[in-house]
């Protein structure tokens, strides 16, 4: 068939093909290697005392319960604040804004926010929330910083979902005499719930993985805080990622670091799976 193909061409094709398949295989092996290595080194050191206690200098033991709780608190507080703002902004962009230029400016701002590196968020969060608002190094300052970090994601996924809500729904509601707000509250938002959920899941992923933005805002403390304490000014606490960094870089406790990495990895797998599920639902509705 391809008898007209010269030897040079054949070699070139074979080399390119090989490169393509090697690169794809590399991705697979990379993931497998990373997951395998972390779990093998981390899982054996995950013990009940590690998960249910705080570090103790007297007993010379390490526990990561405070870090687990802090991660949880930051997720909750960040989402409680970021979700209404993000969904509100998306509703404004999709349902209210008539001026194309205003929409463009807000979208440009959102894109800019999503391109800013974590370390700059951490620094600005420290300047604004820790110092200017005098919240001190605290979980609440960290959460407020992460509100800005997660906002672009929530706006984007909600907006995409709002775009898939058929216009007939809106016209139907308005035609029956509903006001615009009533229409949005009872018809548009419920139909866009899957996009909002996707935004939440992706934001949780970002918060769980965030470290540079929290180092100077939420701090490095390892005390167990109550749920109300967690939103008080001056109550610092490190999340799992920050704890991993401290144990690995500052203290050389690699077994603990790998245990935390295993937990983070399992969380990441779980979050990724949940996001895929939500996205699949979203696509089904879109068609």
């Amino acid at each position, binding site marked *: 068939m391809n008898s007209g193909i010269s030897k040079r061409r054949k070699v070139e094709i074979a080399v390119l093909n090989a490169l393509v398949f090697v690169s794809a295989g590399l991705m697979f092996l990379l993931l497998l290697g990373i997951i395998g290595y972390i779990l093998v080194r981390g899982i054996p050191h995950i013990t009940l005392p590690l998960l249910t206690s705080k570090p103790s200098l007297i007993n010379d033991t390490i526990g990561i319960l405070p870090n687990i709780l802090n991660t949880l608190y930051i997720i909750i507080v960040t989402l409680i604040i970021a979700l209404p703002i993000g969904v509100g902004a998306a509703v404004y962009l999709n349902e209210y804004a008539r001026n194309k230029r205003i929409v463009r400016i807000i979208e440009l701002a959102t894109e*800019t926010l999503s391109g800013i590196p974590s370390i*700059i968020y951490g620094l600005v969060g420290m300047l604004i929330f820790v110092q200017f608002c005098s919240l001190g190094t605290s979980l609440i300052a960290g959460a407020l910083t992460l509100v800005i970090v997660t906002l672009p994601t929530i706006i984007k996924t909600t907006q995409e979902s709002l775009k898939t809500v058929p216009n007939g729904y809106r016209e139907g509601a308005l035609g029956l005499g509903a006001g*615009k707000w009533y229409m949005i509250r009872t018809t548009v938002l419920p139909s866009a719930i899957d996009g909002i959920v996707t935004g939440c899941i992706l934001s949780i992923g970002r918060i769980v993985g965030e470290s540079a933005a929290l180092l100077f805002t939420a701090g490095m403390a390892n005390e167990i805080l109550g749920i109300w304490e967690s939103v008080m000014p001056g109550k610092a606490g490190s999340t799992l990622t920050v704890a991993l960094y401290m144990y*690995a870089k500052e203290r050389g406790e690699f077994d603990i670091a790998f245990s935390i990495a295993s937990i983070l990895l399992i969380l990441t797998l779980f979050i990724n799976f949940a996001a895929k599920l939500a996205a699949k639902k979203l696509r089904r509705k879109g068609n």
Partner: protein
Amino acid sequence: MKNPKNTSDALEKAMNAVFALCGFLAVAFVLMITAFLVISGVPAIGEIGITDFLFGRVWASTAAEPQYGILSFILTSVYGTAGAIVIGVPIGLMCAVYLAKMSDGKNAGIVRTAVDLLSGIPSVVYGLLGMIIIVPLVREAFNLPDGANLFSAIIVLAVMILPSVISVSETAIKAVPKEYEEASLALGATKTETVFRVVVPAAKSGILTAVVLGIGRAIGEAMAVMMVAGNVANMPRLFRSVRFLTTAVASEMSYSSGLQRQALFSIALVLFMFILIINLILNLVVKRGEKNE
């Protein structure tokens, strides 16, 4: 008497205002970040002098006669990013070609899942793996006293930018019209030749977007780099311990004060400028790509 029409009108207006406020909050955040960075970053630049600051080769913030030159950080960030791009983009592009054109459904699903999962792994975890695997490996392979250097950082950064390079390139390659491919195949080119000679060149603006995005990722990464680059303020050499713009901010922030602290804000401002320029280029590339279509 209360007029129901008026109250509902008032509610509508109020809700309109609430939603508009949410929308403009994103703009307000960008302005706030810019303002805070400029206000805290400019004074130190003024005091040190802009040329001494940007082009000074020595950073000795805790010396008796402190010097605040950040040329080594700027060059390290530029070299480190360039290195990550040189290694990461070819592999990423090949992988994107595989996903978009050369795979059967099942294997593509596995590779795509792998890429998705890699993008979700926290940067401290990459840093930890770099510390434990890459750094000793580099030390052994090149017979160095310490493996925490620019080279190790480049390897870790290359891995970290792969997922975004792959997913953006894949989308770009998939967007190339089928007719291009059919025409090339009809002229007697093989599948592989068609993909590399016709489809990939046609997707070049999308691939360029992927590269710019990768640059943004690499230059902004702090924690992973902090854990593998050695963190000494040297002029960059491949096998030397170095400090990036991001790690320069992070490593001294907790104990800094006075002019030293202000200089750290100035470094952040420089980094922010880099990011804004990258964003600008990204917008131009995307816009030009849209115009060509």
